């Protein structure tokens, strides 16, 4: 505490109290912000905590150092060392009938006045207070006072000593001039601390050495010459380990080998002002230099093992900036019990409550939970139950799906599954091998295409729209789900099912593409009057009913401009179709919000033999690049399909869907692809890690049914 720079001290026993001392002493209580209304005089220390000023004591001028009485009672008893060497007992926020009332104001006066540099209460015999003073050639620099010298000597202090020490206070009753012990003649003492090893051992930073005084024999002292004599402090976790400093350098001592420091920490550019061991954690030393905004931490966890001295201890250095505004730190104090917590104070008395965060170790478990160790605490984290489906990690999804029997049995599962919605088609149909090879290949093999111009259904009006038909094109339409099996090209069942699902716009579009405006209008009307129906559909129906193929008509002009404002993609493509020149349907074909199967079906109806493969190729590549599973429709389960699946897996990591897709309808060769094997193995490993033995067995059975060559690898026995 040099000059009026504030220092800070935690109460040794009241975990919510500390004192700031500069020219006066201020007692604060720290509490959480949430627990009480913010009151006047409450100072926020962090986001969660605030301090309340409880008391101020300005009775003791010329303060040089302060030490808090180490015992529970009397609480808030402080010893203050003054510039003239006197030590005064004082207190803060004391109740008037407190036990320590008679101690208040007691002064301990050295023979010769000089600055008191440091104070240390004996942790066992709390009546003993050691004071370290500047040098005086005719006096001692370490004085041990007995604060009880006037009152009930309930401890075994020799009667003679009590008599001696009480000699001077006959006049005032408050001034003690005779110390219990006097040590370090003609020397200076800059820092002091009692050694936990023995209540009669005092470690002192003297003028040019560190000395251990043994009060049982005061003529003896152990000492070591060093410049690092400031701020001596014993590691609370390893009582043989002591830190002291000189200018920018910290020396760490082992009292068992007191000849030289066991290590010196990297020198800091500015002089140190405070060095303190963390009381809640082993081997963590915090240091502060002058005018600095960081606290430098040295993690010496590993040093005090009983290995001996050959090991070079690894020290992890770290700097922390406790103040969010980067302001300079005047002093800091560790909280006596809260893990790694400290309060720092700035020169203008601004205070910050701060916790030094430890190394956090992390490890994922197999069920997407994360173990997280921090200090002595261990947390388990997981994706919350409430997380939206789409936000969940693929591993969580796959695990859930596996649990629900995903992919194992029925076609229905696939129907329900968004991504694999088309694959069930592949299970049926006459041209089995062709079906598996995807629409891309089907279309390529197409021959004997006929072109016809049909009338709008229910009207005699000729369309100038050419529609193409072939066996392969019909097969493609089937795969797209537009028509059922059989020779008839009848979309009615499909329309009905769409209506049932409330997909009004889509149904209307399909009807329209089948040149049935009436049906389209009827669907839209139905949609508008359905529950939660969109009345706008009626407006669309109205617009449709005005259709004219007259090129220059106002209707056409309005539709081609207004359709771009339609938000629903299916409505948009309907008008695109109606306003397109025959054969130029880019407005429909490249509307990416329209399902691939609908666009493909559309293409199969309205693109000629040269346009169609070009379009399908282009679309296939797009799907492959994007890893869009809808594209499986085009590629089938060919090498192309695996390529597509590959980009899907790369993108999502969903080996489950990939494995099942391939296994569901694989003609054999594809399953042997390395990539496919890799997905399958990975998925089996996941099932193992989740302990879904049955699911894995089912998967293997399923797999061997479809791919008889795959005998499950011999299983290593599981020790569980």
């Amino acid at each position, binding site marked *: 505490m040099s000059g009026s720079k504030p220092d800070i001290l935690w109460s040794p026993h009241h975990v919510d109290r500390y004192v700031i001392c500069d020219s006066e002493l201020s007692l604060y209580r720290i509490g*959480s912000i949430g627990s009480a209304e913010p009151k006047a005089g409450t100072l926020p220390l962090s986001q969660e905590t605030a301090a309340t000023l409880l008391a101020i004591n300005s009775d003791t001028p010329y303060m040089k150092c302060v030490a808090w009485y180490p015992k529970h009672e009397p609480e808030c008893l402080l010893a203050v060392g003054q510039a003239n060497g006197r030590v005064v007992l004082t207190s803060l926020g004391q109740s008037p009938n407190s036990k320590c009332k008679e101690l208040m104001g007691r002064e301990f006066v050295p023979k010769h006045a000089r600055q008191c540099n440091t104070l240390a209460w004996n942790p066992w015999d709390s009546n003993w207070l050691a004071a370290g003073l500047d040098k005086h050639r005719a006096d001692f620099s370490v004085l041990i006072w007995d604060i009880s010298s006037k009152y009930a000597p309930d401890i075994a202090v020799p009667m003679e000593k009590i008599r001696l020490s009480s000699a001077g206070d006959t006049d005032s009753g408050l001034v003690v001039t005779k110390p219990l012990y006097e040590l370090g003649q003609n020397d200076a003492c800059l820092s002091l601390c009692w050694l936990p090893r023995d209540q009669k051992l005092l470690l002192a930073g003297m003028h040019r050495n560190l000395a251990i005084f043994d009060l049982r024999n005061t003529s003896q002292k152990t000492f070591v010459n060093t410049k690092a004599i400031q701020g001596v402090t014993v590691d609370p976790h390893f009582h043989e380990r002591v830190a002291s400093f000189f200018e920018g350098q910290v020396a760490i001592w082992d009292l068992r080998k007191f000849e030289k420091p066991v290590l010196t920490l990297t020198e800091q550019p500015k002089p140190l002002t405070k060095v303190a061991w963390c009381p809640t*954690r082993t081997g963590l030393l915090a240091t502060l230099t002058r005018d600095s905004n960081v606290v430098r931490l040295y993690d010496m*966890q*590993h040093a005090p*093992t*009983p*290995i001996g001295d050959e*090991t070079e201890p*690894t020290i992890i250095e770290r700097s*922390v900036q406790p103040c969010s505004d980067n302001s300079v730190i005047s002093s800091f104090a560790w909280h006596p*019990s*809260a*893990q790694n917590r400290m309060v720092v104070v700035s020169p203008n008395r601004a205070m910050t409550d701060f916790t030094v*965060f430890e*190394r*956090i*170790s*992390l*490890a*994922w478990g*197999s069920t997407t*939970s*994360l173990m*997280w*160790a*921090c*200090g*002595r*605490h*261990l*947390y*388990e*984290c*997981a994706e919350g139950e409430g*997380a939206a489906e789409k936000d*969940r*990690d*693929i*591993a969580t999804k*796959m695990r859930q799906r596996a649990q629900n029997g995903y992919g194992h049995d029925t076609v229905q599962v696939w129907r329900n599954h968004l991504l694999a919605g088309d694959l069930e088609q592949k299970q049926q149909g006459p041209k089995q091998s062709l079906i598996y090879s995807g629409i891309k290949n089907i279309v390529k093999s197409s021959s004997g295409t006929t072109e016809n111009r049909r009338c709008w259904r229910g009207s005699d009006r000729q369309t100038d729209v050419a529609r193409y038909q072939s066996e392969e094109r019909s097969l493609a339409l089937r795969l797209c789900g537009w028509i059922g099996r059989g020779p008839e090209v009848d979309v009615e069942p499909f329309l009905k099912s769409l209506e049932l699902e409330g997909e009004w716009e889509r149904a209307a579009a399909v009807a329209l593409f089948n040149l049935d405006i009436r049906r389209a209008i009827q669907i839209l009307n139905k949609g508008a009057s359905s529950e939660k129906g969109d009345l706008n559909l009626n407006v669309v129906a109205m617009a449709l009913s005005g259709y004219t193929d007259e090129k220059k008509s106002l209707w056409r002009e309005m539709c081609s401009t207004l359709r771009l404002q339609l938000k629903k993609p299916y409505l948009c493509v309907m008008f695109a179709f109606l306003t397109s020149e025959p054969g130029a349907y880019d407005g429909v074909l490249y509307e990416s919000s329209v399902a691939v199967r609908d666009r493909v079906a559309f293409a199969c109806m309205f693109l000629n033999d040269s346009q169609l493969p070009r379009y399908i190729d282009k679309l296939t590549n797009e799907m492959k690049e994007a890893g869009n599973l809808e594209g499986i429709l085009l590629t089938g389960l060919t090498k192309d399909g695996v390529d597509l699946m*590959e980009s899907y*897996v*790369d*993108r999502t990591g969903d*080996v489950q869907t*990939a494995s099942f897709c391939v296994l569901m309808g694989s003609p054999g060769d594809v399953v*042997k692809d*390395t*990539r496919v*094997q*890799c997905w399958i193995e*990975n998925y089996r490993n*996941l099932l193992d*890690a*989740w302990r879904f033995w049955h699911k894995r067995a089912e998967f293997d059975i399923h797999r061997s049914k479809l791919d008889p060559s795959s005998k499950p690898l011999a299983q*290593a*026995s*599981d*020790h*569980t």
Partner: protein
Amino acid sequence: MVSVINTVDTSHEDMIHDAQMDYYGTRLATCSSDRSVKIFDVKNGGQILLADLRGHEGPVWQVAWAHPMYGNILASCSYDRKVIIWKEENGSWDKMYEYTGHDSSVNSVCWGPYDFGLILACGSSDGAISILTFSGDGQWDIKKISNAHTIGCNAVSWAPAVVPGSLIDQPTGQKPNYIKRFVSGGCDNLVKLWKEEDGQWKEDQKLEAHSDWVRDVGWAPSIGLPTSTIASCSQDGRVFIWTCDDPSGNTWTAKLLHKFQDVVWHVSWSITGNILAVSGGDNKVTLWKESLDGQWACISDVNKGQGAVSSVTDGQQNEQ
């Protein structure tokens, strides 16, 4: 989207350095500065202490579970320079092997993929990496890479078993010819890749990007394709994602995931390698995911408030 669901009371007397779930996620192993290793049964959200393993004479830095096909085996490494391999037999845990071949603190242990047999890599402050292989008859075969990292090795992580060529090309019944590889990070600010060739370990790659000690490295599980991905983090606050598409494994490209304000302690990949968890000195655990266009984005950020670590004092440990 990720939140703290459980606080495990380990009753460790000092800082916990590592906590690892076993393969099935039913057992938890923890280790601490209090020199102990503890094993808990954490099935169904409970926590029952199964074993308190004493044997180390210094802080225990890391634990690692072997694949369950070899039984319940746990490796631990400590400042006391030892690596201990523990095995459970008839419900009781005993030392299976104690390795004392390092001259300084052993900072990291990692079991190789089960396809390689029981094989353990250990990284030490003496700069060396040891590879211990169980030879079956109770013997452990030891290979040591001296001077792998000057000043010390902080982390090791195995590459997933990747088979060169196709699975079906392998003659049936014969073990596929795997390439053994792992990654290490050290105090020389380097990330190094190691590869076994003709029974000898050789430095395969040296990846330079960090400007301070590399604290942790993690080789991502490969699900899907044999593209290799490694995450590394450092005292310099940076996390890099290294990828290699080249089948020969020679061309690695680094992408900066993020630059944090404080040291980054650990990186950990989720089971499918889809999410990377990163822990830093700012007391945050952040989760990262690669977007479709190859950019890494932070998807979750668990810190005080949820984890309440910053406000946890000894009196209030039961936040949910």
